[in-house]
C-alpha cells in the first residue's frame, strides 16, 4: 500500500503525526549526565568477547532449587507483561513457532518453528553461547515445520530463532526484556519434568 492509496483521514493522521515534536532541551542534558556517570565503553577484543560471552554454568542442587523458585516468579511476571502487550490474534501471524515448545522429557525440550519458505532455521540462546550456526533445526514436514530437540538445564532460558539469517523471536512465547542489542528474544522456563 502506498501513501497515495491511503484513506484521506488516515493520510491526514499520518501527516499530522509526522510533524516534529517539541522536546524538552534539558532532556538531552539529563541523558548526557547519565552517560557521564557510566564507565567509558571500551572496544572489545576477541579474547574479551569470548570471556564475556554467555555460557552455561553449574550450581549445586540446593542453589538450583532456590534459583528455580525465584526464576519461576520472575518468568511468570515477564510472561504476563509480554502477553498483555501482545494483543494480536494468531491469525495475524502467517508463520512462526507452533504452540511454543513441547516438553519431551525431564530436561529435553523440542523447539518447533514454522517457516515454509525458509532454507535454514537455527535456534540461538544462552544454552548454546548464542552461536548462530551451532544448533540447526531440521525440516520435519513438507508444510515447513522445522524442529530440533535439545537437553536444557532447569531454569530460565533466553532464546531466539535465526531464519535465513534474520533474527526472530518466538511469536508464541513471552518476550524477554530487551537485551540492549535491539534483538527481540523469547523466554523459556524449564523446570523439573516440564517445559512451560
Amino acid at each position, binding site marked *: 500500500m502506498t501513501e497515495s492509496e491511503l*484513506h484521506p483521514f*488516515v493520510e491526514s493522521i499520518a501527516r499530522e503525526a509526522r510533524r516534529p515534536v517539541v522536546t524538552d532541551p534539558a532532556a538531552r542534558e539529563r541523558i548526557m549526565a547519565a552517560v557521564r556517570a557510566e564507565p567509558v565503553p*571500551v572496544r572489545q577484543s576477541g579474547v574479551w568477547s569470548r570471556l564475556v560471552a554467555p555460557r552455561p554454568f553449574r550450581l549445586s542442587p540446593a542453589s538450583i532449587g532456590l534459583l528455580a523458585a525465584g526464576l519461576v516468579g520472575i518468568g511468570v511476571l515477564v510472561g504476563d507483561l509480554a502477553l498483555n502487550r501482545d494483543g494480536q490474534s494468531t491469525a495475524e501471524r502467517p508463520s512462526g513457532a507452533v504452540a511454543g515448545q513441547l516438553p519431551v522429557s525431564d530436561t529435553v525440550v523440542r523447539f518447533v518453528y514454522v517457516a515454509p519458505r525458509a532454507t535454514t532455521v537455527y535456534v540461538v540462546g544462552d544454552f548454546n553461547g548464542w552461536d548462530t550456526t551451532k544448533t540447526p533445526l531440521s525440516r520435519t514436514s513438507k508444510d515447513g515445520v522445522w524442529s530440533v530437540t535439545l537437553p536444557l538445564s532447569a531454569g530460565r532460558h533466553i532464546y531466539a530463532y535465526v531464519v535465513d539469517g534474520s533474527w526472530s523471536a518466538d511469536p508464541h512465547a513471552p518476550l524477554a526484556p530487551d537485551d*540492549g*542489542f*535491539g534483538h527481540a528474544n523469547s523466554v523459556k522456563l524449564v523446570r523439573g519434568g516440564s517445559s512451560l
Partner: protein
Amino acid sequence: MTSDPRGWVIAKDMSDDAADVQRVLAGDVDAYAALVDRYYDRCARYAIRMLGNRDDAEDALQATFLRAYRALNRYQERDRFSAWLYRILVNQCRSVAARRAHRDRVFVREEALLLNAPDRTPNWSGEDEEFVQRVLNELDPLLREAFLLKYIDEMSYEEMSALTGVGVSALKMRVKRACDRLRDRWERIKDD
C-alpha cells in the same frame, strides 16, 4: 549533515556517526552528545507517538541512549548507527508500554472512566495534535508500532522487518489492520 524528505537527520556518508563512535570509544564521552543531538528529535517523535505521553517517552529515550552507550563497543560499523539505535528504541518503547500496561491494570477503575469519557473532538479539522495522539493510542500497540514505522518514519517493509524481527507479510498485515481501524474511527466520527 543533512535532512532527507522523511525528516531523518543523515550523517554525511555515515562518517559522522562512525567518527563520533570512535571518539567515544577513545575516551571522549562528549562526542556522544553529538550522536544524541543528531538522533534525539527523530527518536522523540517515534517515542511520543508510540507511547502517547511525554513522561513515558522520555523514560524510553533515556534508556535507549544509555543502553546504546553501554553497548557502543559492540556496535558494528558495517551497520547503520541510526538503524542500530532505532532497534534499541523500538524495544525500549515496547518495554515501557508493557510496564505501563501492568501498572495501568492496577488502576482499572480510572481507565474505565477514561474509556467511557465522551469524545470531546468529534469535528476534527485535521490539525489537532491531541486528537491525533488519541486516535493513535486507540490502536493495538503492535498495529500502532507498524503504522508509525511505515507512515511516520516512512520505512520500507524490509527495513521494518530487519528492525523488528517480524516478517514482511506480518508487518503488511499489521499496517493494513491499523489503516482499517483508523478508517473505522473516521466512520464513527462522521456518524457522531
